[in-house]
């Protein structure tokens, strides 16, 4: 618990120059306005959990942060680089992606590569590491997420929970400054959710800056410095987890929480 306090301390001093800043971002899918004037900053070391109903735009929001989704107006700054509307970011797009890791709902491991090669590919091709260097790092990370004895297997030979932990190790191998999680446990069988959350918890304790989209409200309350509630493409309410979960101010937030916290 002391860790969390010190994290928040860092968060406050870094307030002046956040690592992520979305500035009046708008995004349309055809006629659908999926992100409306989104303003959001994330401080160094902060853990921000984004919640909301399906189709509220919460996944779209974090996918904009590493440029997987283009947006139509506004700007996004990530670690000092700027993403521009309509895919006009140029070189800063790849620069941002190099510093930002992402874990997907469907794991998206590379099925034609062994577990170890999944983890070493980007460090070798992007960071220019030798195979040996990259493998030393990969083996350390795989051990950290508890997969070290499976390094020579292929993704389809692993359970969903194991695959997602490999996906986490793969992202961490690039030594990202920020990690994005897009519903990392939604595709998992219930008995495998815990092992993935444990791996993420460890990352929180290491002080990683994280933006997490999840339906795991208990986990959100436990690890978040701030919870952001998104409804119909807008940030309706945000705040520390205790306040947001226990005394939601906005009726939309209240309605959403009463539905998800019942079960």
């Amino acid at each position, binding site marked *: 618990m002391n860790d969390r306090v010190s994290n928040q301390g860092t968060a406050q001093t870094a307030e002046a120059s956040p690592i992520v800043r979305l500035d009046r971002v708008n995004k349309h899918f055809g006629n659908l306005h999926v992100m409306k004037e989104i303003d959001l900053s994330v401080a160094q070391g902060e853990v921000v959990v984004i919640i909301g109903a399906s189709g509220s735009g919460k996944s779209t929001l974090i996918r904009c942060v*590493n*440029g*997987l989704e283009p947006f139509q107006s506004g700007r996004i700054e990530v670690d000092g680089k700027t993403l521009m509307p309509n895919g006009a970011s140029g070189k800063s797009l*790849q620069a941002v*992606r*190099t*510093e*930002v*890791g*992402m874990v*997907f709902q*469907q794991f*998206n*491991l*590379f*099925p*034609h*590569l*062994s577990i170890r090669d999944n983890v070493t*590919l*980007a460090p070798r*091709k*992007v960071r220019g590491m030798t195979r040996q260097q990259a493998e030393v790092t990969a083996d350390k990370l795989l051990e950290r997420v508890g997969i070290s004895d499976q390094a020579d297997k*292929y*993704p*389809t030979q692993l359970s969903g929970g194991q695959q997602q932990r490999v*996906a986490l190790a*793969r*992202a961490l191998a*690039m030594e990202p400054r920020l990690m*994005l999680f897009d519903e990392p446990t939604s595709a998992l069988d219930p008995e495998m959710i815990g092992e993935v959350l444990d791996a993420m918890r460890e990352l929180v304790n290491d002080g990683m800056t994280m933006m997490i989209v999840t339906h795991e409200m208990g986990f959100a309350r436990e690890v978040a410095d701030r919870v952001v509630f998104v409804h119909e493409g807008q940030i309706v309410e945000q705040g520390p987890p205790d306040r947001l979960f226990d005394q939601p101010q906005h009726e939309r937030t209240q309605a959403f929480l009463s539905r998800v916290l019942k079960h």
Partner: protein
Amino acid sequence: MEFNFQFDWQAAIDSLPFLLKGLPYTLLISFAGLAIGFVVGIVFGLMRISPTRWLRFPAVVYIEVFRGTPVLVQVLFIFYGLPTLLGGPINALTAGIAAIAFNAGAYISEIVRGGVQSIERGQREAGLSLGLSPPQTFRYVIWPQALRRMIPALGNQGIVSIKDTSLFSVIGVGELVRQGQVYIANTFTALEVYFMIALLYLAITLSLSLALSLLERKGLVG
């Protein structure tokens, strides 16, 4: 009704040395044509799925023209027609290889397109999110998986193209069928000779099928 005709095994075996002189031509046209056709197919298949209209459009025209016309007409056009434009004759072997290359290339373009498009969107996103550039993502993530999925369709195209080379007897390439026709003109053993030719084609296509199924099985893990 009475058959005064019997299959003459001796005649069949006797024709073999002469027929086998055509084998190198059949193999050369098939494999040189398919090798070039593979490269052509990759180039046009990728142009076909390019976001740039000016790359897509020529690819569509090429694919539709070469899929929509018979390979026999294509080789006649190249061998008899093109020299009028070029002002000099074209070697029959070259014409045959070119016809296979461009004909198979059109079909392979569609195989490449289908293979690449069949890879889940999340694979590309995972590659990009790790900081790989779009070309790196294609080369290390998309292409190896697409190629594996393309193997059965490529094998099919290989077999079709090998059989298509039999049409090139009409431009006088001394491939299997042409050799057979010349032989029959002297011996009148059509039954035996065409039977042997059919066996030779079967030997080539079965070897290809076998090689590809081994390749596919080897690539199964992962």
